[in-house]
């Protein structure tokens, strides 16, 4: 039986002390996936052979009494937008249904080098475009906490796998909120690191100036542990920062007393569910009672974040997705007579509605005559949004907000209204645009037992502080 709240530390100590073998733990997780995942739909591909090899290596190390690496024996799930050598990687798109990458994503390789056992690849919105996981070309994911609800998106499979104890930790990706919002909907912890903190090498590109890889875990300490493993300069990603990586776990123990936490009224306006508001306000009171000083701050350009995001993200996506041409690795339509017809029909038959919509919007925003009015305008507003945060972080050490304006919504509730779906990301896109780190930590439930998330945003490359605040809150809650 898998214990609920089986954490990274618990796994590693149990294996080191030979109370359990990695192999047995891996098998237990596969059994649980077998039993639960038919109704949840978190996994798209399982990689038993690869897991077996990793488990065997750790068990041999434990048997020899060797010191174990930080993620030793930890069963993990990887969002299916990260390349895994020899293991099918689909981005939940028909376009890549049969794609087998010839190389590993750096973050995945670092997880495995640190002893993690990759169980399989998790479902998501197609090319990570969505906020509900309903845009998967294969099947939607259901929220383990309420099966009629979405798990959030786009890393819905990763969040659901951790919430349903089908994995101890997972990797997700966040372009507009895709780690934090599903973590909040499923009642787990999700961390989006600073842009450049974690290499994007091997991550299937959606919007390159906004894409981030980060952990989804059962508690804050586990998120700190995983971040320590995946962070740091990688020569394969020229945007990965050349900065030292702190000991995030050690940093958790520093006192949070005396930290200044900003509260911005722009994150508590119209559209915020009253139960979410109440839970987040009590969380802020709790942080105050722990000795944090609560300071009002203003982020005046927040109402412009969603339109800015949907112009920049779609423009970058329209360029990144040009590579799916049916020639080298993606789906090819049958019975085509010319090269041009092959491109068009292959793309049309293999992309879902939301992906096409975003390619169209992005192409429109970049096209002659509209570039200045849309794309360039959005890039300028992006500067204003980043300045808002710079200004605020002169006064405070972190900013606390709700992660999402509502708890998990029902499947189908927003799927016919793209704009309503985009607004689900209203509190998360700002951090992606500014490049700052953010974490979502559970802060209670609604009357219907739906999880609510507290978001903590920090300065560039200061994940240590937001982890510390999140940890202090979690310990006290």
């Amino acid at each position: 039986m898998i214990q609920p709240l089986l954490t990274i530390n618990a796994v590693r100590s149990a294996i080191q002390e030979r109370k359990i073998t990695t192999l047995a733990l891996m098998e237990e997780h596969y059994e649980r996936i077998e039993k639960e995942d038919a109704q949840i739909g978190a996994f798209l591909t399982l990689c038993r052979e690869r897991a077996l090899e990793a488990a065997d290596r750790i068990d041999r190390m434990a048997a020899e009494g060797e010191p174990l690496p930080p993620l030793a024996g930890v069963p993990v799930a990887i969002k299916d937008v990260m390349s895994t050598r020899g293991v099918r990687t689909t981005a939940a798109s028909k376009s890549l249904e049969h794609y087998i990458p010839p190389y590993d994503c750096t973050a995945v390789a670092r997880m495995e080098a640190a002893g993690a056992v990759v169980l399989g690849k998790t479902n998501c919105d197609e090319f990570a475009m969505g906020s509900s996981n309903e845009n998967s070309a294969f099947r939607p994911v259901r929220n383990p906490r309420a099966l009629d609800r979405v798990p959030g998106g786009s890393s819905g499979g990763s969040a659901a796998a951790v919430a349903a104890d089908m994995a101890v930790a997972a990797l997700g990706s966040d372009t507009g909120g895709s780690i934090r919002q599903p973590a909040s909907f499923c009642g787990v912890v999700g961390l989006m690191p600073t842009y450049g903190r974690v290499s994007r090498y091997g991550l299937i590109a959606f919007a390159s100036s906004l894409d981030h890889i980060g952990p989804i875990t059962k508690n804050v300490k586990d998120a700190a542990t995983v971040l320590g493993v995946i962070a740091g300069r990688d020569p394969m990603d020229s945007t990965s920062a050349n900065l030292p990586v702190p000991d995030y776990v050690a940093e958790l123990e520093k006192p949070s007393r005396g930290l200044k936490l900003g509260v911005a009224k722009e994150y508590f306006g119209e559209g915020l569910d009253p139960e979410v508001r109440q839970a987040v306000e009590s969380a802020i009171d709790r942080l105050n009672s722990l000795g944090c000083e609560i300071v009002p701050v203003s982020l005046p350009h927040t109402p412009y974040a969603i339109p800015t995001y949907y112009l920049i993200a779609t423009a970058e996506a329209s360029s990144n997705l040009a590579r799916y041409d049916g020639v080298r690795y993606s789906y090819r339509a049958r019975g085509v007579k010319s090269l041009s017809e092959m491109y068009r029909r292959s793309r049309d038959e293999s992309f879902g509605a939301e992906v096409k919509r975003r390619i169209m919007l992005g192409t429109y925003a970049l096209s002659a005559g509209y570039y200045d009015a849309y794309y360039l305008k959005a890039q300028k507003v992006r500067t204003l949004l980043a300045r808002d945060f710079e200004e605020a972080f002169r006064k405070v050490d972190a900013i606390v907000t709700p992660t999402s304006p509502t708890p998990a919504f029902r499947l189908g509730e927003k799927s016919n209204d793209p704009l309503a779906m985009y607004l689900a990301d209203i509190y998360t896109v700002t951090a992606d645009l500014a490049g700052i780190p953010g974490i979502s930590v559970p802060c209670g439930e609604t009357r219907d037992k739906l999880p609510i998330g507290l978001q903590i945003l920090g300065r560039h490359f200061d994940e240590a502080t937001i982890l510390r605040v999140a940890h202090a809150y979690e310990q006290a809650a």
Partner: protein
Amino acid sequence: MKVTEKDVIYVADLANLELTPKERAGMVRDLNSILEYVDRLNALDTTNVEPMAQISDRYGVDESRQGSKRFSYASRDDVVEGLRKSLSQEEALKNAPDADGTFFRVPKVIER
């Protein structure tokens, strides 16, 4: 209405998408609704505001260095297999829908 069906056909052409007549109609509706929302950006005066294309040139960099010098750590010698081994021909062709062992195979490019 900002976007007409004619615009949608033109943009789909730029993006190499086929789009059925039904998809086109939906696209006209959705793009107009999204662009109408996006128009709120025009309420902001962005004269003299620098566009922000990326994060990496502003944050976490050595402020004492300017321009490309900030990124000197990211440069390397231009040598064959400088960062990793190249893929073998076999590996590179493995995922191709159609290949002949040496090349990717595609339909005729030039019509006569």
